[in-house]
């Protein structure tokens, strides 16, 4: 466990760990940023962050991508050994998640207050903005932490919200924002708009890595992301409160202060989105920026979104799995782990002990009734506790030998689904499926299962020994 002071400290650690690659060759914003970042996602489990410092048209701009873009970087973000496997990262993430809440630490100043711009703001001049995908409607800020409060409960810290929402830069000081109705900020915006008032917001860019993960976690409305970040890093979370009362991370590179304009909508999009398809173009809310604060020579961070897997899939991997596990396990303590790594949990694998015949199907149904299950989980695969849901070789084995489609596949027509899932028919509706890949137990007497092969005695000891030896061999 470790608390990073700021974004730059984390980049330094990535560099020390050989998980950051400095690109000093000249690059063009289009298409090099997208091409290099897409290529980085194909480098495997040790894919590094990319720091570009020779950007066409700029004297000294720095752009960093793929910061969370590998299991090694994800582990380092959580202060863990970069070699930590996915299942162990999941178990540790859940352990900390269940220690909620931690504490806020309010301080009066932060490095991002070094430079203040409050007139003639031009976001295009301040940040090296660029297009990610060819059909995107413009240049998007896509890895921000957007901070807001509830106008109907303004001083209640627990309903303050930190969320990662895509922002299209519309002109010099206006942004479009995607706030789908399930998002917490949509509740706050509805309260402000019912009053006919603008919603004050702060947008933090280039953040230390934990708060970005928390902003991407579908927590409850009354759970403050900073208090979850505090238990994730093992220390109170340091923030600076601005004049409006919004708490802003101490460790950010830049902060945009502004308002979501009441009752105003403008064309926004398309944008290449997490399912690997472009979103459509909609009339979305508009933000007006009143003030920009930043460190000298701010490092601009962005996340490439393309056909999975990309950095985005790491951002919404364990952050999606842990809340679902926590909610399902509270009802069914037999549930061992949840793997919601695939496309924000559109496909999801649950491992569970099976108490009696039909139990696994009930577990699958419970997943569908979690908040995330209502709008995302579409294909649920339930496996026994002896199958690691994070090891697809094991999952495919379970499906191979423990599924008889005649009795193990449940189709549930016309359930709610996120609009961004292109398989919806009509938009927002889909048929969902539960695959029971557990071995039938009494009174479910289907199949002809004899004795299962056992793992040889001493395998675990040998595994540790061989891992150490192979590590030595590769030094």
């Amino acid at each position: 466990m470790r608390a990073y002071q700021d974004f730059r400290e984390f980049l330094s650690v990535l560099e020390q760990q050989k998980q950051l690659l400095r690109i000093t060759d000249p690059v063009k914003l289009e298409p090099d940023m997208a091409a290099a970042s897409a290529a980085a996602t194909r480098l495997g489990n040790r894919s590094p962050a990319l720091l570009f410092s020779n950007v066409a048209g700029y004297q000294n701009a720095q752009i960093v991508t793929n910061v969370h873009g590998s299991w090694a970087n994800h582990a380092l973000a959580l202060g863990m050994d970069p070699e930590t496997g996915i299942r162990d990262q999941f178990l540790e993430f859940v352990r900390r998640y269940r220690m909620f809440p931690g504490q806020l630490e309010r301080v009066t100043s932060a490095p991002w207050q070094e430079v203040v711009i409050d007139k003639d703001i031009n976001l295009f001049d301040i940040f090296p903005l660029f297009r990610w995908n060819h059909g995107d409607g413009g240049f998007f800020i896509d890895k921000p932490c957007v901070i807001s409060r509830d106008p109907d409960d303004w001083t209640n810290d627990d309903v303050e919200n930190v969320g990662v929402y895509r922002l299209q830069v519309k002109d010099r000081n206006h942004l479009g924002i995607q706030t789908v109705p399930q998002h917490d900020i949509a509740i706050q915006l509805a309260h402000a708009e019912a009053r006919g008032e603008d919603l004050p917001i702060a947008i933090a860019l280039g953040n230390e890595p934990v708060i970005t993960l928390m902003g991407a976690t579908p927590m409850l409305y009354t759970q403050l992301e900073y208090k979850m970040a505090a238990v994730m890093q093992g220390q109170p979370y340091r923030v600076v409160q601005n004049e409006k009362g919004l708490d802003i991370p101490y460790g950010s590179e830049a902060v945009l202060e502004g308002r979501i304009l009441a009752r105003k909508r403008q064309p926004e999009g398309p944008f290449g989105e997490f399912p690997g398809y472009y979103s459509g173009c909609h009339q979305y809310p508009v933000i007006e920026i009143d003030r920009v604060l930043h460190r000298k020579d701010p490092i601009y961070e962005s996340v490439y979104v393309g056909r999975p897997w990309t950095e985005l899939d790491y951002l919404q991997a364990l952050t999606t799995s842990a809340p679902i596990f926590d909610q399902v396990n509270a009802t069914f303590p037999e549930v061992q782990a949840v793997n919601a790594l695939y496309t924000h949990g559109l496909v999801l694998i649950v491992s569970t002990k099976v108490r009696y015949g039909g139990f696994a199907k009930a577990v699958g149904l419970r997943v569908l009734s979690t908040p995330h299950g209502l709008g995302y989980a579409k294909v649920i695969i339930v496996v026994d506790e002896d199958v690691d849901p994070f090891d697809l070789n094991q999952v495919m084995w379970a499906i191979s030998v423990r599924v008889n489609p005649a009795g193990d596949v449940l189709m549930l027509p016309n359930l709610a689904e996120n609009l961004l899932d292109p398989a919806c028919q009509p938009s927002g509706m889909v048929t969902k499926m539960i695959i029971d890949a557990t071995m039938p137990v009494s009174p479910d007497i289907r199949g002809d299962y004899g004795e299962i092969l056992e793992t040889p005695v001493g395998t675990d000891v040998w595994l540790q020994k061989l891992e150490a030896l192979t590590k030595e061999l590769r030094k």
Partner: protein
Amino acid sequence: MSAIAQGAIQACPRCRSNTVAVRAVSPLAGVWTVYGCDTCFYTWRSTEPETNTDPDQYPAVFRLAAADLPKLQVAPAIPPLQAKKP
């Protein structure tokens, strides 16, 4: 500005409106210019491929008609105004 004045940029590549403005020029002079459309809010850089910058080569699948913009789905819906709270 000069590019518009010279007629190099006449219409938005996506919606063909004539509401195009310069958003920024490169800090190192002469490398690129960023343009934006005040009707559909499409944004592009002068150094991008013509399929991003030229209305005639912009992909049909991404084109928008200015007249259709008000018909786009509104999300989230705008709630009714409440009576003023004390």
